[in-house]
C-alpha cells in the first residue's frame, strides 16, 4: 500500500516535458600528452543536445567518444572549447575540468555499482551522501524506485549475486534517484547478448518515458542507436568530430515491432554507410584505444 502511494507522488514530481538538461558542446578539442607525443582525441567537436533528447553517439572503437563523455562528466579536462549545461558553463578555457556532480550521472561501460553494497544501498547512496535525505529515508526511496523498476526481489542482494543485466538496471536506478539533468551512458550493454539487450532497451525506454531525462548514450550498435535515439550522431575516427547526424523521427513509445519496419531498415542503412567508412579508416590506422 505504502509503495503504491509513494509511486503516485513520484510521478507527479517528474514532469512529462523537460525544461532542463540542454547540453551545448562548442568547438571542443582534447589533446592527450601521455609520452611527450600529442594525441588528439577530439578535434573541434560541436554538438547541441536538447533538453529531454536521447542523443546516441556512434563511431569506431577508440574514436574519442568516451573522451567526450569523460569531459562532460568532469573526469577529464578539455584542451580548448566550451561545454554548457543549461546555459551554465561546465568547462571552458579558464576552467578545463568540470566539477563532478549529481546533475550529470554516468553509467559506466563495465558497471560501477559498489560491489560491497547491496543494490538497495547502492541506490540509496547518492541522496544520502549529498545530504538530501537521511539514511533511512534514502533507503525508503531507493526501495520504492527499485520496486518501480521491478527489482524489489533482488534489492537486498549484492551486485555480485545478480545478473549483469540486473546490475546495469540497478545502476541506472542509482543514477535516476538523484533526478539528474543528464544521463551519460558509456556502452552500458556492450557485453550483453541480443536477447538481454532487447530487455534492457525496453527497461531503459520505460524509465525514459517516466522521467524524460536527457540521455547521452555511446554505443557501437547501430540498431540500438536507432531504436533508442531521437538523433544518432556519427563520429569520425580519431580525432573525433561529428560526421553525420541522423534524425530518428519515429514516435514514442517504441516497441520491438519497429525493428522489422521498412523505416527502421532505411535508417540503419543510412547510418551504416557513414559508420563503415570511419571504421575502415580506424582499422587501417590501427591505433590503440584511449581511455
Amino acid at each position, binding site marked *: 500500500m505504502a509503495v503504491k502511494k509513494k509511486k503516485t507522488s513520484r510521478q507527479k514530481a517528474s514532469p512529462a516535458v523537460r525544461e532542463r538538461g540542454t547540453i551545448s558542446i562548442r568547438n571542443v578539442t582534447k589533446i592527450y600528452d601521455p609520452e611527450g607525443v600529442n594525441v588528439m582525441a577530439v578535434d573541434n567537436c560541436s554538438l547541441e543536445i536538447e533538453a529531454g533528447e536521447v542523443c546516441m553517439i556512434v563511431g569506431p572503437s577508440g574514436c574519442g567518444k568516451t573522451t567526450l563523455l569523460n569531459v562532460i562528466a568532469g573526469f577529464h579536462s578539455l584542451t580548448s572549447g566550451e561545454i554548457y549545461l543549461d546555459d551554465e558553463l561546465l568547462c571552458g578555457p579558464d576552467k578545463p575540468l568540470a566539477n563532478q556532480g*549529481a546533475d550529470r550521472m554516468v553509467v*559506466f561501460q563495465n558497471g560501477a555499482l*559498489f560491489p560491497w553494497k547491496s543494490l538497495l544501498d547502492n541506490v540509496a547512496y547518492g541522496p544520502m551522501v549529498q545530504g538530501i535525505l537521511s539514511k533511512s529515508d534514502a533507503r525508503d526511496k531507493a526501495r520504492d524506485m527499485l520496486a518501480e523498476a521491478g527489482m524489489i526481489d533482488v534489492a537486498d542482494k549484492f551486485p555480485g549475486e545478480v545478473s549483469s543485466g540486473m546490475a546495469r538496471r540497478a545502476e541506472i536506478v542509482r543514477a535516476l534517484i538523484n533526478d539528474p539533468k543528464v544521463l551519460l551512458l558509456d556502452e552500458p550493454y556492450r557485453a550483453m547478448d541480443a536477447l538481454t539487450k532487447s530487455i534492457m532497451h525496453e527497461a531503459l525506454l520505460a524509465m525514459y518515458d517516466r522521467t524524460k531525462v536527457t540521455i547521452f548514450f555511446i554505443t557501437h550498435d547501430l540498431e540500438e542507436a536507432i531504436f533508442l535515439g531521437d538523433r544518432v550522431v556519427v563520429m569520425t575516427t580519431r580525432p573525433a568530430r561529428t560526421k553525420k547526424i541522423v534524425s530518428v523521427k519515429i514516435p514514442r513509445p517504441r516497441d520491438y515491432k519497429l525493428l522489422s519496419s521498412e523505416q527502421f531498415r532505411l535508417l540503419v542503412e543510412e547510418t551504416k554507410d557513414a559508420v563503415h567508412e570511419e571504421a575502415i579508416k580506424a582499422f587501417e590506422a590501427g591505433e590503440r584505444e584511449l581511455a
Partner: protein
Amino acid sequence: MSDQAISDAETSLARTPPKGFALAWYRLKKSLATPTPYMMLFGIILWLGTYYLLTEGWKVPRFEKIPGPLEVMTEFFSFDPIWGTSLFTEDFRINVYVSVRRIVIAFSLATGLGVPLGLFMGWSRIFKDYAFPILETLRPIPILAWVPLAIIMFSGFETPILFLATLASFFVTTLNTMLGVESIDESYFRAAGCLGSKKHHVFWHVVVPGAMPFIFTGLQISIGVAWFSLVAAEMISGDYGLGYMIMDSYMVNKYVSMVMAMISLGFVGWATSAMVRWGGNQMMQWRVKALALEGR
C-alpha cells in the same frame, strides 16, 4: 533415476535454502561425497607413516635421535610425563598462553597501525610521497637484524619481543593495504564523485571496503610473519613462550618436549590464521557470496 527420486529433487529445489545447522550438515554430506576428505586423510597417514618409519620403525641413521610420533603423542597426552611436560602440565599451558598473548598484542598493534597507514598511503599521493621511501628502506631489514637494537631500546624480556613481532607484521599489513587501495578500479571513484560524495564519503564507502580483500590477504600473511618473528625473538631472548620452550628443551636434551612445542606452534598458528580468515569472511559477505556463485 526413479520417479520418487525425481520428485524428491524437485521438492528440494522448491524448498528454501537450508540455514545454520542444516546448512552445515548439508555441506558435510556433500563434502563426504567428494574425494577431498579421503585424500586429506590419506595424505596425513602417508606423512605420519613416513615419520614413524624413519624414526621409530627403521631407525634410519641421523633420524634415530628424533622423537617419533608415538613417543611424542604418548608424552603429549600423558598425565605423568617422563620429560616433565605434557598437555596437562602447568608450564606447557603457560608457554602457550604467553605466546598467544604476545601474538594477540603484536598483531593488534600491527593491524591498528598498519591498516590506517596503508589506507592513507594508497589514498593520498602526498602521504605516500612522505612515507613510502622510508618504509621501503626499513622493510627489507630482516627481523633478526633488529634483535640487538630491540634489546638495547627496550627493557625487560617482554617489550623487545613484542616490538619484533609487531614490526614484521606491520610492514606486511601496511604494504598490502596500500596495494589494496591502489587496486580499486578507477570507475568506483568516478561513480562516487558523480553521486556527490565528499572526501570522507569516498574514504569510508570506497577506499576502506574496496581495499578490504587485499587487507585480509595481508593479515593472513602478517599473522604468519608475526608468529615467525615471535618465535625467533623468544628463542633469542625469551622468558616463557613456545619459542623459548623449543630452545630450552633443546639445551637440556629434552627432544620430545621440543617436538611438542613445534607441533603446538603448528596448531596454534593454524587456528589464528583460521580466525583471521573467518573475520575476513564475516566482513566481506559481498565477496563470499559472489565467489560462492562462481563455485569457489
